[in-house]
């Protein structure tokens, strides 16, 4: 059981934070990450219309054969995406704590411009403390 990666996508679909933890995912260039994040943003928007049970805010978990994507959509349109192994049970709680760390270390930081790439040491430190090496 492992956490492979964390992405934070702003409300316009741009990737503002990307970090890998446990090995298991292919290494991509930063441009490829940007493209993937934008694609995920679009797909997420489409899935909100596809729900068979009425209103939906979009896909929450997308499972593949070797990993799963858990997406936390905030009230402001920011998406926190956690890529984990299939058996990982704590994805939702980890995402909530990541959101809390974001609200504290990024939003309250006067040197961060909202919707721009996150280059905040405090956030990095808190994510390290939270997820560490990604092996659980």
């Amino acid at each position, binding site marked *: 059981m492992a956490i492979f990666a964390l992405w934070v996508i702003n409300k316009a679909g741009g990737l503002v934070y990307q970090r890998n933890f446990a090995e298991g995912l292919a290494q991509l260039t930063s441009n490829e990450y940007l493209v993937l994040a934008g694609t995920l943003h679009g797909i997420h928007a489409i899935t909100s219309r596809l729900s068979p049970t009425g209103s939906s805010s979009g896909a929450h978990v997308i499972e593949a054969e070797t990993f799963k994507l858990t997406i936390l959509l905030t009230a402001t349109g920011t998406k926190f995406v956690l890529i984990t192994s299939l058996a990982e049970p704590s994805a939702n709680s980890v995402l909530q704590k990541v959101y809390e760390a974001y609200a*504290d*270390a990024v*939003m*309250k*930081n*006067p*040197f*961060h411009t909202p919707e721009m790439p996150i*280059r*905040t*040491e*405090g*956030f990095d*430190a808190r994510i390290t403390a939270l997820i560490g090496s990604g092996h659980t």
Partner: protein
Amino acid sequence: MSAYAQPHPRFSVLSSSSLSSAELLSPSNSSARFSLPSAPSITTATGAPKPLSRPNIYDRPLNKTRTTEVSASAFAFMFSEVVQYMQKRVSGINDLERRLNTLGYRLGTRVLELMVWRAESTSKAPKREIRFLPALMSIHTNVWKAVFGKPADAIEKSVENEDEYMIIDNDPIVTRNISIPRDMSQLSCSSFTAGIVEAVLDGLGFPARVTAHNTPNETYPSRTTILIKLEKSVLEREELFK
């Protein structure tokens, strides 16, 4: 035309226009920049004046809010906006620190008044610190408790310079969520706290220059030192006391 001298930059000014103060404070003056709590007018149109529904903030007892707390998140957001506001208007790191210091200074004068009033007003023999070390101790404990809720972590005296003392805070609340970018690593937003300390020292009669510096160590990466550099007059006076 009023003949106000330019007030000391550390004191807040309502406006620099030449209106007389009566015009400035009138609640009906639409160009007043601050909204004042409107006291119900005594000369209402008909009938007896209505009783005050709740006391004016100025009439509230000062001890009422002694132990109230403020949301740390609310303060963090406001302070973040203060720093961003200043960043657009300053010419460099030193200027930013100076402005934060000035802002803290305005807070410190009020903190000192309130703190001393709350501590000494009910006692039969109110006392005042006239020696420097007890004053420093009182800042370390009382001011920190009044403003941050807990005493500061350490006091140190510099070995190289006679006139330098340091108050150390291992995890300052003011800057808890601030991450300084690498190209501004000299900046310490605790200059705000330094301003508070400077105002308290000035009010107690120990003029000094107070600055804040980041002094991280392994256990406390955000450890901050408030450096107090006393003026010569204070040292001379302390010598006379001995």
